[in-house]
């Protein structure tokens, strides 16, 4: 990749960002007059971003796919690490993500328009747009300050979103308060960690970051940063919010709290990846990510409610994305992210149908197709976008046995869980909320998820020799590295074997256990209950914190009471009172003495002066001025 230091042109979508954000802010703050246009102004904002991204694509196509950086120094000092720099890093991956996310959000907002069951308020759509602008700001950041700016905009969007939803009832407002607290925690950890870790050795641009000296600050910063990442991805301990998730709200909430947050933190990591590599976080991060994803999938398997299983699957899927980012690179992570995001959008449309107990419905044929295709897409199945990164990972990780086993197990659990969710959803979805528009948008999502669009290969790189390549996809000129891994035949065959085994085993287990799973659940209720109970673990921490705070308050209260009623009068107050009396007396006397002496001295002086002066004070000044001028002349003659 060639990096051009100079500014080629002002990135167009920076302007589009500003415009989209301004539209959204107008909608939020502008009162009823602007809300009359909604939610079309939010959709218009997304369309603007999309058009700008297409222009950028054209520019990049003409410029030969060279990434360029534009850094604006905002405040400069003599030391380089004190600079505040806002820079845009425009590379194919960034533009691709901008295009993709604006398209998905555009369709998401449009689809919400087609929904009868849960109409979206104008505030909600505006807040979604603000959040998306924040995410995209992080994705095109060249400096850490730009990434922080994106995080800030995202947080504002989240707060607006919470405000727009919390007016419904008290439980909703508790939910949003909690979720915003969590994202704030994640951001604080990440920002402070990254500021400590990356600043301790002096940094300017994230893509050319180097570590010279390993310091204590670096180690602490790394630890905080890593903690922030994992809180931001909402792995298991932060999944407690799904316990009170109403089924109708799944689509909205998982979009805001999982997809957008996942995209945000993924963007932060993609942009800071050179820095993360330089401080030596990659391998640790990969292992933590894959372990947490295994845990999330397992939690999902033990949920009774299909919605909870599904949300746990999304969380685990994003952690797998994180694992791919750390172990191979941003390209694979992006492709798998695309698959998970699209599949979860498609499936959540089906899963979020309201559950009606005691009534089992058999779905119509189109819904069956949608669910089956969505499950294939989500599990990284053949012909869809998730195949390529998985194949590459299976090939590249063969030297690292621990990570290979963890990946295979994670992939298997992911397939199992998403098919379990799909099969459960099939049994109870109805057609009454589906309109033609919804079908069109779901079809578009499927199209976006096709492997051929992203990799140029029909099967997604599953076949040896690459003879199913229908032409080099235009995105491929950036993703060209994909073909290099097809050189080693035995390794390729082994990778195909791992992939196929996990996929088939996962689908088989999900299908084979579809009835037995519920029977097992009924037979061993105590064992299965842990799946529900384990979600309350996060409450343990919260309650612990609450107890701690209450304890501190009560101790403080007790101390204050005792001090004021018993100890203070005897010891402190008396001393203070006597001291203040003494000070008061001496103070007044002192002041009086000063006053009197000043008055006397002035009276004496003025009486004397009164006799001496002749009344023409102007003459004194004139004489003084004249003598000063003489002095000045003398001084100037000295020079």
């Amino acid at each position: 990749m060639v990096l051009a230091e100079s500014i080629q042109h002002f990135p167009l979508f920076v302007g589009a960002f500003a415009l989209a954000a301004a539209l959204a802010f107008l909608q939020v703050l502008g009162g009823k007059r602007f809300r009359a246009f909604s939610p079309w102004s939010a959709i218009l904002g997304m369309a603007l971003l999309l058009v700008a991204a297409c222009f950028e694509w054209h520019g990049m196509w003409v410029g030969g796919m060279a990434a360029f950086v534009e850094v604006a120094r905002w405040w400069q000092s003599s030391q380089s690490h004190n600079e505040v720099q806002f820079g845009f890093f425009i590379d194919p991956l960034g533009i691709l993500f901008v295009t993709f996310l604006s398209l998905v959000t555009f369709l998401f907002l449009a689809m919400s328009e087609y929904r009868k069951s849960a109409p979206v308020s104008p505030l909600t759509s505006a807040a979604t747009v603000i959040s998306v602008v924040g995410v995209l700001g992080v994705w095109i950041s060249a400096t850490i300050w730009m990434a922080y700016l994106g995080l800030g905009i995202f947080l504002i969007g989240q707060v607006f979103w919470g405000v727009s939803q919390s007016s419904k009832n008290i439980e909703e407002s508790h939910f949003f308060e909690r979720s915003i607290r969590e994202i704030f925690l994640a951001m604080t950890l990440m920002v402070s960690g990254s500021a400590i870790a990356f600043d301790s050795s002096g940094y300017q641009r994230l893509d050319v970051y180097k570590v010279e000296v390993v310091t204590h600050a670096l180690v602490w910063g790394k630890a905080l940063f890593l903690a922030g990442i994992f809180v931001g991805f909402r792995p298991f301990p932060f999944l407690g919010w799904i316990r009170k998730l109403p089924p109708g709200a799944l689509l909205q909430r998982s979009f805001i709290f999982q997809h957008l947050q996942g995209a945000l933190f993924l963007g932060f990591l993609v942009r800071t990846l050179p820095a993360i590599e330089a401080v030596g976080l990659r391998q640790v991060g990969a292992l933590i990510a894959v372990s947490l994803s295994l845990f999330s999938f397992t939690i999902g398997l033990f949920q009774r409610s299909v919605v909870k299983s599904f949300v746990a699957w999304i969380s685990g899927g994003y952690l797998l994305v994180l694992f791919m980012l750390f172990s191979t690179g941003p390209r694979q992570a992006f492709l798998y992210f695309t698959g998970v995001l699209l599949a979860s959008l498609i499936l959540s449309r089906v899963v979020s149908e309201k559950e009606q107990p005691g009534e089992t419905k058999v779905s119509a044929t189109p819904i069956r197709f949608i669910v089956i295709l969505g499950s294939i897409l989500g599990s990284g199945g053949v012909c869809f976008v998730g195949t390529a990164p998985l194949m590459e990972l299976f090939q590249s990780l063969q030297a690292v046995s621990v990570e290979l086993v963890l990946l295979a197990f994670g992939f298997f659990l992911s397939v199992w869980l998403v098919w379990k969710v799909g099969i459960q959803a099939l049994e109870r979805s109805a057609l009454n909320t589906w309109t033609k528009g919804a079908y069109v948008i779901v079809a578009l999502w499927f199209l976006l998820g096709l492997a051929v669009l992203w990799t140029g290969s029909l099967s997604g790189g599953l076949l040896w020799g690459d003879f199913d390549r229908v032409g080099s996809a235009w995105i491929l000129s950036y993703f060209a590295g994909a073909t290099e891994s097809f050189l080693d035949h035995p390794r390729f065959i082994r990778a195909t074997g791992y992939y196929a085994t996990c996929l088939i085993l996962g689908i088989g287990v999900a299908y084979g256990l579809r009835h037995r799973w519920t029977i097992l659940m009924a037979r061993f209720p105590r064992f299965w209950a842990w799946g529900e109970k384990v979600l309350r673990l996060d409450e343990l921490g919260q309650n612990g914190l609450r107890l701690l705070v209450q304890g501190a308050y009560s101790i403080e209260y007790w101390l204050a009471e005792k001090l004021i009623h018993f100890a203070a009068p005897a010891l402190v107050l008396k001393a203070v009172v006597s001291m203040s009396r003494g000070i008061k007396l001496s103070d007044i006397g002192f002041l009086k003495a000063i006053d009197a002496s000043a008055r006397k001295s002035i009276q004496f002086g003025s009486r004397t002066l009164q006799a001496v002066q002749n009344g023409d004070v102007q003459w004194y000044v004139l004489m003084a001025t004249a003598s000063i001028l003489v002095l000045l002349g003398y001084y100037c003659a000295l020079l």
Partner: protein
Amino acid sequence: MIYLISVILSVLGFVGIASSQSFIGFIVGTQILFFGFSSLFVFIAYGGGSQEPGLAFGIFILAIGAVYQAVSYALAARIYQRSNRVAISDLKRIRN
């Protein structure tokens, strides 16, 4: 250019002295005038002149100014005691 500041201060001081009817205004004008002159010496000293004499003159003028202020304020207090107002014209009345 920096000498201009001193000149402006001195001119302001003169204007204050000339235009003021009140003795307090007169004192303030003198204060500004002296400050302007003393700063002129300081600026010349730092702008390439010999430093020690310049600074010495500046401090001297400032000291003279301070004494002048003290005397003037004492007289102002005396005028106020006698006639309940502080006008320059009253200075002649309190003579002797």
